[in-house]
């Protein structure tokens, strides 16, 4: 082989993680470890009503009887659940009345992340809720949203201010019994975001949450609940980053979406948790349960995700297509580099008549990573005239990584149509050379080809996220062809 090819394979994988800084800020921790007292501590910190404490304790008891799922392709040493903090809050966070009271260091962190919390600086018209470790530190544009009756606040506030809505919908999509990680979340979730869009309202701006794990040895368990009432519409964006640390950090979030009759929810995620270094040290374990319920007729839920971070990604944003004529979409780009492991996909559960679902998954693997698409399409016997289209494409950038596609298809009536297409390809020397011959350097060539590969999904992202996502793709793949 020629000289320049040797150079390629020797290229070290420079860590491109630009969000790996840590903010030195005084934090308030729960005692290390997990027991009933931890659950009580968290609930007490948040002055929660008794019903919610009981709900948490039920979940905790349930969790004790469960065991970690082992059916996925991800492998990791046993997690010591007693060796983590389950609550960490920047000190004095409870007293915040306005953004002016937020610790300047925190604001600095958010500025580094590119999230200007101050409303006057934010021209793009995106309302932001930022969750730092376990607590929500500020929601912008709250007043403007209130005019339309839109509720966008931290989960803790929602528990205080809108207990009826929380009582009605919390756990109604992902019950406390659902799975090991979501049950754990139900017991110890600390904060998150809450959204309610009243009937007939088209949310006037994109709603956005940024999650940040900062404190060492801290798990993050946030809970997001989005309710779109009849004939309403909301587009919700979520971004995540974490500092670089040698140890693994556990992130087990739960997201529940409820779309009532005629409502539409568009949920976009750019997940860039710290992925670990080139030796596989550190990185976030991301075990996330995301599920949307198209509860009403003619409702629609659309998941779009760009996953470039985390040492382990285990998530399957799903849609329950309960209402007649409801539809679900899943658009995903999952990038894995170095020793990252991705096992991700979706579940489309067709229950109502004339329901439709569409799955477009793009997996890109490089380094020594493994990248699995795992998806279920289930069409129930009474779900007449329903249809699904699935397309799963994998792109491999070298010979040391792996890509798998594992589709489960259950179609229980003859009137429904399920289509599945899958491709797997390696980035070709010919494509790279062609681009380079036209003047693009190697990184630009890879970026161009990968962005082309992901185009169908990138197009689904809201504009400001699409730009960020493209940049993130390029950064995640730097020096990755061998």
């Amino acid at each position: 082989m020629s000289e320049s090819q040797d150079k390629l394979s020797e290229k070290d994988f420079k860590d491109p993680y630009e969000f790996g800084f840590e903010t030195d800020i005084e934090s308030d921790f729960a005692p290390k470890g997990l027991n009933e007292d931890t659950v009580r501590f968290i609930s007490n910190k948040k002055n929660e009503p008794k019903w919610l404490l009981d709900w948490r304790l039920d979940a905790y008891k349930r969790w004790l009887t469960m065991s970690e799922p082992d059916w996925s392709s991800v492998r990791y040493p046993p997690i010591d659940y007693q060796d983590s903090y389950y609550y960490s809050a920047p000190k004095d966070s409870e007293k915040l009345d306005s953004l002016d009271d937020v610790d300047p260091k925190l604001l600095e962190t958010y500025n580094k992340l590119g999230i200007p919390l101050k409303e006057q600086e934010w021209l793009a018209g995106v309302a932001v809720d930022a969750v730092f470790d376990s607590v929500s530190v500020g929601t912008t544009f709250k007043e403007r949203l209130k005019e339309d009756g839109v509720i966008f606040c931290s989960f803790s506030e929602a528990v205080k201010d809108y207990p009826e809505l929380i009582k009605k919908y919390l756990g109604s999509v992902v019950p406390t019994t659902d799975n090991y990680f979501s049950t754990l979340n139900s017991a110890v979730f600390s904060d998150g975001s809450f959204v309610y869009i009243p009937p007939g309202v088209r949310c006037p701006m994109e709603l956005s949450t940024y999650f940040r794990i900062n404190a060492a040895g801290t798990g993050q368990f946030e809970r997001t609940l989005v309710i779109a009432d009849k004939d309403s519409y909301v587009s919700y964006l979520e971004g995540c980053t974490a500092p670089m640390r040698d140890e693994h950090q556990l992130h087990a979030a739960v997201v529940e979406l409820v779309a009532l009759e005629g409502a539409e929810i568009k949920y976009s995620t750019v997940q860039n948790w710290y992925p670990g270094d080139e030796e596989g040290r550190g990185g976030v374990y991301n075990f996330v349960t995301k599920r949307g319920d198209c509860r009403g007729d003619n409702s629609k839920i659309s998941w779009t995700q760009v996953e470039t971070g985390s040492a382990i990604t285990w998530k399957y944003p799903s849609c329950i297509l309960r209402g007649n004529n409801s539809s679900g979409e899943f658009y995903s780009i999952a990038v894995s580099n170095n020793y990252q492991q991705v096992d991700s996909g979706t579940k489309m559960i067709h229950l109502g008549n004339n329901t439709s679902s569409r799955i477009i998954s793009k997996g890109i693997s490089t380094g020594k990573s493994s990248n699995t698409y795992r998806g279920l399409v289930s069409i129930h016997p009474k779900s007449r005239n329903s249809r699904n289209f699935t397309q799963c494409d994998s792109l491999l950038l070298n010979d040391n990584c792996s890509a798998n596609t594992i589709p489960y298809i259950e179609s229980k009536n003859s009137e429904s149509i399920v289509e599945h297409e899958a491709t797997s390809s390696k980035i070709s020397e010919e494509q790279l050379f062609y681009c380079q011959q036209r003047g693009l350097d190697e990184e630009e060539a890879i970026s161009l080809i990968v962005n082309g590969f992901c185009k169908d999904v990138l197009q689904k992202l809201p504009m400001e996220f699409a730009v960020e996502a493209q940049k993130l793709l390029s950064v995640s793949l730097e020096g990755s062809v061998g």
Partner: protein
Amino acid sequence: MNNFLNIQSLSAKVEDKLIINNLNLNVDKGEVHAIMGPNGSGKSTLSNVLAGKDGYEITSGTINFCGEDLMSLKPNERSNRGIFLAFQYPVEIPGVTNINFIKTALDSNRKHRGLDPLKPGDFLKLIKEKSKILGIPEDRLKRQLNVGFSGGEKKRNEALQLLMLDPSLAILDETDSGLDVDAFKIVADSINSRRNNDSSMLIITHYQRLLERIEPDFVHVFINGSIIESGGPELASEIESNGYERFTDVK
């Protein structure tokens, strides 16, 4: 000796097999050279080596381009210095639109020359003009690069990139193959029309027909990795009539 393109005693191997064997070639500014040879004589290897493709081991010799050692430059650096290869088999790049690709390439070349990216309006005007010359419908510019293009459409698209990037050295690797009679004339004539004193061409072909429309200054007979005879256009006519027998017999 000139200071444009200078190939001296070049030998190159692919997987231990000697493909280019002690090749010498000088191309001066404004000259058109044709390399003719039978299948498997190493013509495409020569174009790949000039463009800097991986997978070739240069065992001896030098390639000098405008005073620089070409071998020390990466493919993109060669492109940005004005070397353009019209591919024999252009590749498909799904999801990347033709027009965006050409814009990216052009801006990259311009950047090297210290120029700002071409303004969208100016770019559009230019590409529409060049497309028109080549008879390329505008909707093809919006399609994904080479995806689902017929062989002829791909070749026409290579010619479009050639006209857009306007390189100082164009290497045409069997650009005539895959084109039907009408397309062939359009492509050949449009390439011929950009001949000037500042840009040179290296035309790699089996047949004389392209050379009837782009008359070369020099014709080289290329067999087993080296030039065994050079002459003017009459050499191409002779090959057209008699084939390569005379040259292969010599070997």
